[in-house]
């Protein structure tokens, strides 16, 4: 077997390259992005089916068990097969470029981590066709609901859900080991910690967070698997077990998971704002270190998901405090971004629009998040659409918009082609309007007491639900200009220069697209990142 470290032929990448077991981090990055975007589209269709059912208060499109499966798989696919691996794809492509490395630390492990994802996703999707149907217990899969197994069959949707998540977990751990080793051990000469781009800082903090919190979910899933398949009593109160324990294990990962998702997006914002303001990032060190502060504090907040789960009051108070504390490091970031664009020479091209839109949306997400961290508010809106609204402001309006910003920003670098600016702007405008139409009414619905995960509801909620549903359909439409733009520009777009945005990062110092080993010669780093009007990054 030839080792990927030794064989470096300058092969031309064709479309077949992307269907093969390739160890080039750039090929793997694209494989991640395209695959996960496919899962994003499927999960989006599931969301529109849910919203179609909710157009009217009555139950009229899908039977209730199928409705349960729809929201379960919508959430699971979006989180575990779009946002987390999609960002891993972006990091895969750009971290080695941004630190001046030729590839990731373990190229073969990198390829294996990617190739675990398609089977995991397909397992989930095809579990719809099992006699039992797909999993129905929601993306958190709490026992005792997840252990009911109404079909009575050993091979049921819930079991497939657990297996699929375990496979994704293995893939994530492989990715985490690879990212951390790459960033710690493979930076170009001269790139000290405080010369790393913020995106690299955020990927490092997110991956460390994942490495030390995901194992708790793995343990929880092993126990859930045993309970479901051979009937052990771990999470069954009747056998002396404790279902609340699962909630602890689940949220010990799944709360930090939100930061695993959002931290790289903060990194993307921190890359794009300086480039399109033609100014250095304000408070670089504070932004860099606040990523680690977020990682550490976010490992100590998980119980805020369980304020209504018979949690003792001292615990409620403690976790309310830590939850509100996360607002400090995130506030530092938002402040720095604002100061970065202050009196900058703003260029409002599509990446910048998506970044600015994402930051404004994040304010709403963050403020409602702090509200939810306050115990009395949380008890009132627990399990209502207020939570759903908050979460979608995080995951769509902030994270997915940030990912679009990144895709537009780096599209010329990856493809060597330029996308169509007017279509990009149309995509942004549609996204901003549609996402707010879809998700803002949920706050009102939740405050008024509409419970989530139900397919028929009280007629008083009808008007807001119609708005939300129409918004979600428009959100589906908003993907069309994006897809058309990407595919059309890839096939017939004009050539892009090596650095169309006048950005300062290392990835812009090489050609578009980058050559097989990224750089002609390993660059020597001599200055800070974002050096507008200051010292250059590379001598």
């Amino acid at each position, binding site marked *: 077997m030839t080792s990927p470290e030794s064989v470096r032929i300058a092969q031309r990448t064709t479309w077949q390259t992307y269907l093969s077991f390739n160890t080039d981090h750039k090929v793997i990055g694209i494989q991640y992005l395209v695959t996960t975007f496919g899962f994003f589209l499927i999960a989006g269709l599931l969301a529109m089916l849910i919203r179609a059912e909710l157009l009217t208060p009555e139950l009229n499109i899908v039977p209730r068990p199928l409705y349960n499966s729809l929201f379960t798989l919508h959430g699971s696919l979006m989180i575990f097969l779009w946002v987390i691996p999609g960002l891993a794809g972006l990091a895969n492509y750009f971290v080695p470029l941004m630190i001046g490395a030729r590839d990731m630390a373990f190229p073969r492990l990198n390829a294996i981590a990617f190739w675990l994802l398609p089977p995991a996703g397909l397992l989930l999707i095809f579990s719809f066709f099992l006699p039992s149907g797909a999993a129905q217990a929601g993306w958190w899969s709490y026992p005792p609901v997840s252990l009911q197994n109404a079909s009575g069959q050993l091979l049921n949707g819930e079991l497939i859900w657990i297996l699929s998540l375990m496979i994704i977990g293995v893939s994530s*751990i492989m990715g985490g*080991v690879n990212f951390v080793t790459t960033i710690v051990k493979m930076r170009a000469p001269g790139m000290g910690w405080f010369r790393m781009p913020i995106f690299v800082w955020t990927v490092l903090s997110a991956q460390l967070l994942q490495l*030390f919190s*995901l194992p708790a979910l*793995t343990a929880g899933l092993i*126990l859930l698997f045993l309970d479901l398949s051979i009937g052990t009593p771990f999470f069954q109160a009747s056998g002396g077990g*404790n279902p609340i*324990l699962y909630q602890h*294990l689940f949220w010990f990962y799944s709360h930090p998971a939100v930061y695993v998702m959002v931290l790289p997006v903060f990194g993307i914002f921190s890359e794009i704002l300086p480039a399109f303001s033609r100014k250095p990032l304000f408070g670089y060190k504070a932004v860099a270190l606040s990523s680690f502060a977020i990682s550490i504090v976010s490992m100590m907040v998980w119980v805020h998901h369980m304020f209504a789960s018979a949690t003792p009051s001292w615990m409620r108070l403690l976790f309310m405090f830590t939850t509100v504390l996360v607002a400090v490091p995130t506030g530092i970031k938002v402040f720095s971004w604002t100061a970065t664009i202050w009196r900058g020479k703003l260029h409002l091209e599509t990446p910048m629009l998506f970044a600015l839109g994402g930051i404004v949306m994040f304010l709403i997400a963050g403020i409602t998040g702090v509200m939810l961290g306050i115990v009395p508010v949380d008890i009132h809106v627990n399990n209502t659409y207020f939570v759903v609204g908050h979460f979608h402001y995080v995951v769509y309006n902030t994270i997915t918009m940030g990912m679009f910003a990144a895709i537009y920003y780096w599209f010329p670098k990856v493809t060597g082609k330029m996308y169509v600016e007017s279509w990009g702007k149309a995509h942004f405008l549609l996204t901003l309007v549609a996402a707010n139409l879809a998700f803002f009414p949920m706050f009102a619905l939740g405050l008024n007491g509409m419970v989530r995960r139900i397919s028929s509801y009280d007629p008083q909620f009808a008007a807001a639900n119609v708005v939300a549903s129409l918004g979600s359909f428009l959100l589906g439409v908003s993907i069309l200009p994006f897809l058309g733009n990407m595919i059309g520009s890839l096939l017939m777009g004009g050539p892009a220069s090596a650095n169309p945005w006048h950005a300062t990062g290392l990835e812009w110092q090489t050609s578009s697209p980058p050559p097989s080993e990224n750089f002609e010669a390993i660059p020597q780093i001599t200055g800070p990142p974002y050096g507008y009007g200051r010292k250059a990054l590379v001598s």
Partner: protein
Amino acid sequence: MVMAEKPLSPDVRDRSLFGLMVFLLSDSVVFLSLFVILIAFRFQNQVWLPSGIVRLEVRDPAINTFVLVASSGAIMLAENSLKRNHPWRFRFFWVLAITMGAAFLVGQYLEWMRVGFNIHSGLFGATFFLLTGFHGLHVFTGLLLLITVLARSFLVADYSGVSFGVSGAGLFWHFVDGIWIVLFTLLYLWSP
């Protein structure tokens, strides 16, 4: 050096070891979670040993523990021999470690047969078999790694380079050993 493969550069060896350490830290959180589960169950249940079981027999598992800890010592002696360029002494201690590791697994199997309860014997039975089973899988993986390194040591060798295999497999073995000490203390000495 005993490895047959083209010698890795010191950089690659260094980053492989670093990556393995990151992985082991992450893996230890799985065990940590399982230990927390054990502790939580213990505190919630006054009586949780399966009916008919008064206490767990400690003597045989303690001997087993001793064998596993000693095998870690054998690994250290093997690595030391390698540093002094004694490949046959390395192989001797390495095989000794493999034998002791295998003896531990056999001992665990006998222990499983002997305890008088099984994974369906309530919460304790399930927890007991989950913890020892999950650890046993790690020991088994470690054995495979050790055997692979041993097999590769007989291939035509380039003794000049540096290699990751010996240090990596050794590190994994020490990790599995360390986890067992905590597990043994919690499961046999503290929780019943």
